């Protein structure tokens, strides 16, 4: 953690969007930062979630299914409920605005997952 690079003014990253929990649809669906501590265990540090999410995205894009399964299980064991539908999404945001209000410039769904269901 040496902060060797300054984050860009507009940057892109991956995150999760929770669609439903325990068969109940969330309207609107919520992003990981809002689900943290609510639907995702806060005993796990956010940096660990971020690490697993980036790993999941890169393994899906490079079609490494074994690796993707491993990252999924890391994420899914942290879900408090045993029934959830969520999406892996790519987001683009202004760093300061995202911190201030959670505002996102663009959002692209990469893949939808149902907890426990095979890839």
């Amino acid at each position, binding site marked *: 953690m040496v902060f060797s690079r300054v984050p860009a003014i507009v940057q892109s990253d991956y995150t999760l969007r929770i669609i439903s929990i325990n068969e109940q649809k969330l309207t609107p669906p919520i992003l990981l930062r809002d689900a943290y501590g609510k639907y995702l265990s806060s*005993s*796990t540090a956010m940096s660990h979630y971020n690490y697993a999410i980036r790993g999941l995205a890169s393994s899906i894009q490079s079609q490494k299914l074994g690796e993707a399964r491993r990252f999924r299980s890391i994420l899914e064991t942290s879900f408090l409920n045993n029934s959830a539908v969520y999406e892996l999404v790519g987001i683009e945001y202004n760093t300061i605005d995202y911190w201030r209000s959670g505002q996102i410039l663009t959002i692209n769904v990469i893949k939808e997952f149902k907890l426990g269901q095979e890839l």
Partner: protein
Amino acid sequence: MRANIIRSYKYFIGKILFKLDLESYANKVDPYLKAERIVQFFYYYLAFESVASLKSLDVGFSGSQNFSPVWLISWISPTNLDAATNFIKFGFLISALVAAFYYKKRLARILVFLAVFHLHALFSSFLRFDHHWYLWLYLTFILIFLPDSSDKNPSTQIKKRFLLVLLSAQSVLMLIYTMAGLEKINGAFQQWLAGDVHAFASEAFSLQIANWLSSNNTNSLLGAFMIDNRWLGWPLFVSSIYLQLFAFFIVFRPSLQRFWALGLILLHVGTYLTMNILYISSSLFLMLFFFDSPFIKEQDRSFRSMLKDLPVFGTVLKLIMTPK
């Protein structure tokens, strides 16, 4: 050619880095006593840490399914993880308590180093490498090389070796900051070449804080204020790079040791106030190894000698003040 290289190397080490004459320190009693006290408190603190962290040493994170052992603990499998964790945890506790009593014995120092090594390996086997035990690992390793003597009047040779090992521990501590500083300069240079925002830009600190706070879903006392007042954060951020970059050189500039250690502790406090990141052990090591460093002499305490020894600015000052 070869002789020239060796001569240049000796000049660099002797004149630029090594301003310390260990022989002169070893001939006195006071530096040795101070060094011994630092080592004693280091092992007391390690014993305290072994008790204080007993509860937090539970490997609860996400369960055994995320366990992927690093080479040192490849003998541990998810099925014996609980038993192995307890073995490492209590091995650390016992060896740290033994080392607090017998820190003058090399065997005790080796045992506690091995315990810290295993603890660090265990915590680095869950998704990501652990940062907390790094410094403990390096320092316990270096202190193994302290001379094994319980003589009340040790020889000059023993005192010199003791001071050399302490100087090595100080060097490693500061080298870590210098490497962080170098990484920032390297990153800034590459981002500047790419036309991106870099570490010397006015918004650099605001972006670092905002990015850290949002990606870790956390808040800090002064984060919002610093993001909104980026011109206030800019000099602080640039000063922090200066402090980190030259930290290693300060080991060989005793006049600046206390001042630099205080600066780095304030850097940690600032990181906590703005980003909610706190490195308690690092601050304690800086206090312990530098506030009453055995290498600080009476003449080093003057403001003038401090100014003259400042990296870059001191050289400029000397050039200005030297009569033509």
